[in-house]
């Protein structure tokens, strides 16, 4: 597993061959810097514009021609979202609960599976692997009705656990793939050392592998969180009470006017509110996150 930090500085220090690159690097570095700033601007501006629009009064939200900056600041849009039906905190609580269970399920299933696929000889291994990845190819909207009817028969409908299971179904193929690559990038020597110590495979998994694949685990958890947090259709079908609904359902409802009319102000406030937790988690886990992809994505 390569260490990120070493790669960059090497190129800019050292002997003549590299110094020649450093010479032309100054002009290039300004260009790269400018390109980065351009990219940052392009990627952030829709979010910034949305944020500015969310602070407009509802009256100004539908002004034509539109203005970039609000003429008067107002938190009305946020108040509307906050107070909607069961209240923002209820929805956030539900979404967080479902996401947490989905993360646990995803990891509980993908980690051992990836361990098995990466480290053991299994008959028809690649066949099983493809079978596990196949759900990616099925339009999940089609599966929802049969799944819901089955869940209601076995009592899993209207429960956070049931919804978390559906979210896990959607995330599992990607999670297994990521973890498998994570495991496969660990050198064999470490495993052989464990064998010589006399550990069982389970102990080896727990004591040796898990700490090493932590970046992969964090990545899987992050993606499971984001996808569960934003998932709309299953949450609506599988829950039958306002107080069990999740944030995406609330957002769809709060901006709905008659006959398809959209309350643009509520939309903007909703977008900003719903991305905040994801951004927070992303920033906190930035460190693990990038190296998670590093070990998980490349074979």
């Amino acid at each position, binding site marked *: 597993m390569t260490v990120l930090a070493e790669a960059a500085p090497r190129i800019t220090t050292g002997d003549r061959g590299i110094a020649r690159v450093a010479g032309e690097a100054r002009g290039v570095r300004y260009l790269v810097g400018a390109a980065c700033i351009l990219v940052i601007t392009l990627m952030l501006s829709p979010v910034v514009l949305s944020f500015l629009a969310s602070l407009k009064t509802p009256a100004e939200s*539908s002004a034509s021609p539109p203005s970039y900056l609000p003429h008067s600041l107002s938190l009305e849009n946020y108040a509307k979202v906050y107070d909607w*039906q069961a209240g923002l905190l209820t929805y956030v609580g539900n979404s967080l609960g479902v996401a947490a269970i989905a993360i646990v399920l995803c990891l509980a299933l993908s980690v051992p599976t990836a361990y098995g696929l990466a480290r053991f000889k299994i008959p028809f291994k690649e066949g099983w692997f493809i079978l596990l990845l196949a759900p990616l190819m099925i339009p999940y909207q089609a599966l929802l009705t049969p799944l819901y009817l089955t869940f209601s028969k076995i009592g899993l409908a209207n429960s956070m656990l049931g919804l978390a299971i559906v979210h896990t179904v959607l995330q599992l193929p990607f999670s297994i793939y990521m973890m498998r690559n994570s495991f496969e990038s660990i050198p064999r020597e470490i495993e052989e050392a464990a064998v010589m110590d006399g550990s069982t495979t389970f102990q080896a998994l727990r004591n040796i592998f898990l700490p090493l694949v932590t970046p992969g685990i964090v990545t899987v958890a992050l993606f499971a969180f984001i996808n569960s947090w934003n998932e709309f259709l299953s949450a609506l*079908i599988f829950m039958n009470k306002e107080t069990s609904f999740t944030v995406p359902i609330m957002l769809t*409802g709060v901006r709905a006017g*008659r*006959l*398809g009319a959209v309350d643009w102000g509520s939309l903007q406030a909703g977008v900003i509110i719903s991305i905040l937790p994801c951004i927070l988690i992303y920033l906190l886990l930035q460190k693990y996150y990038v190296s998670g992809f590093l070990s998980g994505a490349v074979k």
Partner: protein
Amino acid sequence: MSLPILGRMAIALSMSAAIVLPTAAFAETLSIFARASSSNAAQHMVDLWNTSHDDKIELTTIPDNQMVTKLATSVQAGDVPDLISFDLIFMPDFMRAGFLTDLTDQLSADPNQAKVAQAFRDLATYEGKLYGTGFTPDVSILLYNKDLFRKAGLDPESPPKTLAQLEEYATKIRESDPNAYGYYFSGSCGGCNIFTQAPMMWASGAKLLPASGDDTPMDGTGVREVLQMLQNMWKNGVIPESAEADTGSNFQATFETGIIGMQGSGGFAIASLKTNHPEIDFGIAPLPGVEQGQASSFVGGDVIAIPTGAKHPDIALEFIRWQLSDEAQLEALAKNFILPSRTDLADNDYFKAEPRYITTAQAVGIGQTPWAFHFNDMVNADQSPWLTMLQTAIFDGDIDGAIEGARETMKAIAAQ
């Protein structure tokens, strides 16, 4: 989180409590599904009931375009709410599918039911039986901007009374102000236009949707005339370009920018304009037809019904009857400037404070609602035959082809 085991324990405990204390009053909790766009109105009703009754009702809002799916999956799973408030155009399909409880005996005897707008009574009837009634109505009207009228030299107290006048006024408004437009409609929204353009067609005598495979859709005076009028206005630039792609998201927003002279809209627009855009001096008028004296509206909004398999049908029925009472209609609806279902209450004290609501309430009396199976498929769906007809006639310029095409497709759908 509801685990079945805990649920069963709770039921067992409460049942044993009932046996031990047979005289104890047992307050129930009922559930009602309402669609998101009318949840505000439903909330007023539910809140008023909850203040005066021991049995409480909990409201759950479902996004509009998922209502049918949600109800259908709930019915199939046997887990239905006690009450549902939904777009009345779905009544025929739901009644035929057996989703709703027959309320004929209990409800038709109720004196308040007889005062409910005819459109709701018709929509809720199937094979002679009654399955629901009006709940939170809305009706379509013509919204117009009095300032733009003045600017164009038109009398702001004289809205158009015929299609020809509408076209004339709209053109004048456009000519008087290059930044303003005479007319607006959401060109990619089937539902918006059955609500706002169709009434002009049936005001003139047309019959639009087929009730069965034998009916001819889009039939009679009014269809061609309305399409021609809209096509003329579009060709002459009287309607903004953005109208063509609007799937309904700007149904309210565009008029609220103050640059539109006239637009078909609903009673709900009044409150929004008064609160958010007090600077717009707007008027309300009925939607006109071809001739003088012809006017109509789409009587829409939500009906209320009890799904089959509801757990508390008796209390649910009580609610339905209660909401037709004077108290509920006036204090929950009229007071909040929502139309009452009962036409005899159109002229109430609350509305007297804002005469534009009286016009709206009167529109209920002259309005219709088409009764058809697969309404959604024919009208509201993306790329429905209704919408395709409008777009082909108005934007592509082919009125005959448009009408023919719609007739063919709708007949095929109705024959299913």
